[in-house]
């Protein structure tokens, strides 16, 4: 076994433990809260029922974090395919899917023609899902939310960009942006696992590429990733 095989096996076992051992108590918290509500709900007043609902919703949040961690740890070692990925089609699919699940969203999303590139179709889809989800989330409080997606071809790579006109962030925190469970916006203002951009970074790195952000507080943000040409 090579060192990387050992590491992959450890990660596999880590993600197995997480999904099995951590989920059981979360499931119990949610299940028993529900049982309490069913059997004793009539004896609780409004405040009691509100407190119980908080317990459930926080447990559900833990479940979401576990999902994220499992996805993240699998990303590091799952085998990658290398096919020609039509990025324009992929980005449009993600945007359309989003529109179908959130018909009330008023975010305008513009997608320019994006060059195709060699890579893993499923993983690159996750990149678009996370970047588009982030951009629409952080621009959602603007009066006219807008997301723009475009690309530029350079001699050795293609740079893909997702810009939003949302809250932006202070570039002093840009290092934290791609870390696990890091959020540059505090509290409950924007819901999220804090894993989306860590997932993006890991996928792009596995393709031999790079990710970065450019933003200013209150002036929107642009998230970019570059993928090398000539892999396939």
């Amino acid at each position, binding site marked *: 076994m090579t060192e990387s095989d050992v590491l992959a096996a450890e990660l596999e076992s880590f993600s197995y433990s997480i999904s*099995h051992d951590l*989920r059981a108590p979360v499931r*119990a918290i949610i299940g*028993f809260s*529900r049982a309490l509500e069913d059997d004793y709900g009539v004896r609780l007043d409004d405040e009691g029922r509100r407190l119980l609902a908080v317990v459930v919703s926080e447990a559900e949040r833990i479940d979401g974090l576990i999902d994220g961690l499992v996805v993240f740890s699998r990303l590091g070692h799952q085998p990658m395919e290398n096919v020609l990925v039509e990025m324009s089609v992929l980005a449009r699919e993600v945007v359309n899917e989003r529109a179908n699940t959130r018909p009330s969203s008023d975010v305008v999303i513009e997608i320019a023609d994006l060059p195709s590139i060699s890579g893993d179709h499923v993983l690159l889809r996750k990149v678009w899902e996370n970047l588009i989800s982030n951009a629409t989330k952080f621009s959602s409080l603007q009066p006219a939310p807008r997301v723009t997606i475009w690309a530029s071809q350079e001699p050795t790579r293609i740079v893909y960009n997702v810009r939003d006109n949302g809250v932006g962030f202070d570039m002093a925190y840009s290092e934290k942006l791609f870390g696990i469970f890091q959020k540059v916006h505090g509290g409950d203002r924007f819901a999220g696992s804090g894993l989306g951009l860590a997932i993006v970074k890991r996928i792009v790195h596995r393709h031999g590429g790079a990710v970065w952000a450019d933003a200013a507080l209150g002036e929107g943000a642009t998230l970019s990733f570059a993928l090398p040409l000539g892999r396939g």
Partner: protein
Amino acid sequence: MTEYDDVEILLVEDNRQDAEMTMRALRKCKIANKVQWAKDGVEALNFIRCTGEFESRNKNSFPKVILLDLKMPRLDGLDVIRALKADEVTRKIPIVVMTSSNQERDVTESYRLGVNGYVTKPVQSAAFMEAVANIGMFWLFVNSTPV
């Protein structure tokens, strides 16, 4: 006739909370009259084979379905499936794996060994209740097994 006869569902689950929730779901939807809870694979095999504490059980009576967790102390779920499917008498008892794991290798291995169903325990309580009710309904009322 002992208290262990006419058991309709054998629930094999080491996690007390999961076991209680599953039995509660079965009770709520009024599907199973008699559920036997085995706390690990060893106890499950003792029950099925009428050995150990279950020696006095009627040897011709089997549950209509076994709900089986995979990760358990002493003897895990995959070993229970191997043991039951290797025996001509017990191989016809339907086994539905109910586990937290949605790992592809567990699903593949369970089916390779001959399980009849594989369900990942939902975290949401409504979905959990519904999954248990659906499993119970199908294996107790819809399905037929050889006599």
